[in-house]
């Protein structure tokens, strides 16, 4: 098991935010601690900047 720091930039989709962030983080490991730390405009819509630490199980 190891802990990995992570920063993600997600284009905000419609609907609840919580599931969007969780699903994006789950692709990298088990989310341990995270927060949206910025919301930035872009030509395609709002970008959510997420800082996190995920747990990665060794194979």
């Amino acid at each position: 098991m190891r802990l990995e720091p992570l920063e993600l930039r997600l284009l905000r989709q419609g609907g609840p935010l919580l599931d969007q962030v969780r699903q994006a983080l789950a692709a990298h490991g088990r989310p341990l601690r995270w927060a949206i730390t910025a919301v930035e405009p872009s030509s395609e819509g709002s970008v959510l900047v997420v800082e996190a630490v995920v747990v990665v199980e060794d194979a």
Partner: protein
Amino acid sequence: MSTGASMAPPMPTLLVIPTGIGCDQGGYAGDALPAARLLAAASGCLITHPNVMNGAALYWSDPRIQYVEGSALNRFATGALGLRPVRRQRLGLLLDGGMEPELRQRHLQVVDGCRATLGLEIGPVITTDTPLGVHLSQGASGASWGQLERPDALLRAGEQLLAQGATAIAVVARFPEDPESEALAAYRQGSGVDGLAGAEAVISHLLSSHLGIPCAHAPALSPLPLDPGLDPRAAGEELGYTFLPCVLVGLSRAPQLVPLEGASSAVLADPQLLAREQLGAVVAPAGALGGEAVLACAELGVPLITVANPCLLDVTAAALGLEAIAASSYAEAAGFVLALREGLSPAALRRPFPRLFAPGMV
């Protein structure tokens, strides 16, 4: 004299002040405690986390305040956990094997002091079989984060404490030191981010989510040289040799964490059980709304009270598209909490007061 019999029933309220983002109030040594006490009085039941309550050598115990570690707070807010108040917890102490003998002895003396002077039940004590290897880091936002080289050692020691009867765990990890760092100087002067806080949260999140019991963390550090310009908000951390007393006191009556998935009807019917559906309000800094607990509550429709409390972040209700009641201070937020508890619309307390319909629209 009236004893408050006409007071409305308690309204469980969640107070979140994220750690490690330099909040003007709550970014230092338990300096949001006065706000928490006021909100506890206004709500009759406040659920909050160690960053709000921990003042190192300073603490305040209030039966109206439920001390819930951050990851458990998130799981409560998302509906995975309920909270059951307890009379007391049996505290296990988990010490980092990387601690020097003298520092370890200082922490054991805190344990003895809390047993003798406060009457807390503490023990078993376990030392990790290898140093935890804490590293500090910073995110792009400037928020403090951290890492552990040996999370496996932390979890092994936690499992041993659980097996030996601990119902809550205080962790003390040896933290790296850089007494000459500019960041530490800024923090002590009251203008910086708590560089330890992010790593502390990672440690307690990992242990609490693994074991399912209340856990909280105190860093082990050598005492700092005297700073005559020390900011009062950071002073709680410089009164003694350890940060452990507040953690032991907070955990000693931390509520039991009750998994709700698959819980029996008897568990769910327990009148003592606090579930997120009972929340009447969530209070958070206006620029730090992007955490799991606040988002979960907002999506559930719990009234969100945002407080002007400057920090590194600018993740506001407007940026996230959330409805919020804006308060200029925790004193005003307490007024809104009391209004909600009494069934008053907070909007009725503001001026100008708009019509429901524009003239001619009815």
